């Protein structure tokens, strides 16, 4: 047992820190630090800076830009990136469709898509959930029927995050409605979102934002060679994709950063000369959250340091569950620190209420999503109960 990083890992961490804090445009990092919404251009620019340095897709196979890093190095890369307020590479591209194409796609698909996917020349959207297929994803109904050299797609996807920016969408579609098990009739299809018959409609959320969309498919014709891997094996690829999110599943560094920011604000002088942190109840809540975040970070390090090859440490399933709970708890304490100023969510720039206090409640509302997406926390509990505890 050893506490310190090895000299090599410590040097690696320093190298990452230096890169992220000096090579990514300050304006983008400031926007992240201030919790401002990033434009599409900012997200693209940041990813291209990383990709040019070989830091956008380090977990991909080496021939497509991967670095062959250890789990611990991947963890350090991700945490240093978040700590430096660098927006991580677009997950749909780098964690989801990229690894699926690299692992299961034909050579033609790899040649055609992987480089532009890494560089965010193509912005991918995710077409998995449907109105009647949420946690029970295998009940999806969007259909693809073969017609000559094409698939004809009909149906509706939903919760498509940032679909308004999407160039392409990777979809799970039902290609065999008569399969004996419903998981066996699903395929993984790549669809150009400019195809005739594709309609994207924004969904307004409780924070007033429109980051998710419904995507409708009406007789959309998709070339047959855009089906990834084998027909009716899409469920296997989807499980691979969802299990592939281990690195970065608990965004510890950004939670830590936000908690430290909130604490700093709680130490500012109020009108009566006191500070909020002098309130022992609030100080105790901060201390409690800091300890929980430390426990989460150490668990993430245990998982990263002790994952042999591709087999995740059993504690990895704790990361999503606790990671999102703490993400939410920290957005909540920011609202508490803002107090009455948190009501001024609609105030324009130039208001006496600072920006952080104005976005506190919308962010708090927005992050209720974290325990729902990526396999709801109830799904995570089911996984822990069945695969770890044998229940």
């Amino acid at each position, binding site marked *: *047992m*050893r*506490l*310190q*990083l*090895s000299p090599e*890992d410590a040097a690696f*961490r320093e190298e990452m820190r230096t890169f992220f804090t000096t090579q990514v445009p300050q304006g983008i990092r400031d926007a992240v630090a201030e919790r401002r919404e990033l434009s599409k251009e900012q997200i693209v620019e940041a990813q291209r800076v990383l990709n040019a340095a070989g830091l956008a897709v380090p977990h991909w196979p080496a021939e497509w830009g991967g670095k062959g890093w250890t789990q*611990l190095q991947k963890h350090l890369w991700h945490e240093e990136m978040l700590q430096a307020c660098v927006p991580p590479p677009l997950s749909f591209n780098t964690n989801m469709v990229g690894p699926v194409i690299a692992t299961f796609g034909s050579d033609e698909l790899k040649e055609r898509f992987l480089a532009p996917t890494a560089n965010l020349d193509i912005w991918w959207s995710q077409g998995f959930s449907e109105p009647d297929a949420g946690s029970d994803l295998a009940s999806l109904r969007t259909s693809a029927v073969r017609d000559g050299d094409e698939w004809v797609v009909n149906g509706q996807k939903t919760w498509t995050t940032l679909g308004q920016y999407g160039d392409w969408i990777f979809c799970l579609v039902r290609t065999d409605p008569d399969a004996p098990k419903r998981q066996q009739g699903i395929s993984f299809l790549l669809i150009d979102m400019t195809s005739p018959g594709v309609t994207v409609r924004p969904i307004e959320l409780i924070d007033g934002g429109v980051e998710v969309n419904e995507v409708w498919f009406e007789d959309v014709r998709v070339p047959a060679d855009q089906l990834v891997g084998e027909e009716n094996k899409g469920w296997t690829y989807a499980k691979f994709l969802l299990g592939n999110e281990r690195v970065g599943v608990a965004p510890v560094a950004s939670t*830590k*950063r936000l*908690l*430290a920011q909130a*604490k*700093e604000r709680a*130490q500012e002088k109020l009108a009566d000369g006191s500070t909020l*942190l002098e309130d*022992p109840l609030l*100080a*105790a809540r*901060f*201390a*409690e959250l*800091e*300890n*929980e*975040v*430390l*426990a*989460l*970070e*150490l*668990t993430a*390090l*245990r998982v990263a*340091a*002790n994952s042999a090859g591709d087999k995740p440490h059993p*504690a990895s399933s*704790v990361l999503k*569950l*606790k990671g999102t709970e703490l993400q939410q708890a920290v957005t909540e304490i920011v609202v508490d620190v803002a107090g009455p100023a948190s009501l001024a969510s609609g105030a324009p720039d130039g208001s006496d209420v600072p920006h952080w206090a104005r976005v506190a409640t919308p962010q708090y509302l927005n992050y209720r999503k974290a325990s729902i997406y990526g396999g709801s926390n*109830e799904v*995570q*509990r*089911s996984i*822990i*109960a*069945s695969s*770890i*505890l*044998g*229940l």
Partner: protein
Amino acid sequence: MDFTYDSEQKALRDAVRGLLTKAYDSARRRDVVSDEPGFDSGVWAQLAEMGVLGLPFAEADGGMGAGPVEVGLVAEEIGRVLAPEPFVEAVVVAGGLVADLGTAEQKAAILAPLSDGTLIPVLAHTEPGGRWEPVARAVTAREDAGTWRLTGTKEPVAHGARADLLVVSAATPAGTGLFVVDPTVDGVTRTGYALHDGGRAAQVVLDGAVGTPLGAADVDRTGDLEVAQARAIIIRGQEAVGAMQVALDTTTAYLTTRKQFGVTLNKFQALTFRAADMYVSLELARSIASWALLVLDSGADPREAAARTGFQIGRAGHHIGQEAIQLHGGIAMTAEYSVGHYMSHLTALEHALGDRRFHLGRLAASVGDHGTVDPLA
């Protein structure tokens, strides 16, 4: 960053686990703790023979020269079976103080026989009306013609009736001092009793009892006591992790075998989700406890790491102990079944060294002193 045991540590763990699981099943433990002295002298002798009782002490003092990681893994094994032997009390707390502060003569007189199992020293520190501060008030020590005499009451003193030697904290003109007291001398009255978890404690009344300063005289030992307490909290964190793991394992085993409404209990999601939450609590507590052990091993000041461990373990102990009983149902209320004793012992562990509110208070008092907490710093 490495959280795994090396091969020697694994061998030690296997040896200790072999000894303790052979010595204690639930029924055997109940028999042992229902009789005086509340533990098995044979097991104590076997631990001595294995070198376990001298693990943290220098070889020159008769010990093995091992570190906190080895001591911690022994504590974890003790926690798994709730072994009632006073390993932490004698070796980690009292022995640790003697090793830290004792004169060469004191070390020779105490650590070698402690290591070979023939002498059990314990710390007498807690006083009626006190909490977990490293300060003595009710017991005072005064020097008269070159002899120190101690007066006042210590209670509860873990294993205080059986102990062969007491290390007593006492208020002196220089602050809180530490004294070695032979419990058989005039002026020491000990009244022992059993605790809810099968442990043992005593009231120790001192009435002009002769004591010898541990190490130099006229030194305030508040900081030394605090470090010794921190060390004990961190080692007991490992013991608690062992106990919580078994409480969870026992619960999940029961859920897969006990039938109600014609099916095993693991068919009820209301129960399996709660077991999943127990696992989350356990893994988070284990992460902090392991980290704290490494902080201790690094030689850094262990006090903050101890407070973090005390809080996280205290909270997890409540959660896991309570749920282990609830998910079992009535059977876990019986003294014959094992799992209730785990909750009882976890509760005792927490209140021996500072409860979760005490530790959280410490952390809250210094929460404004730093930006973030970085475990790799």
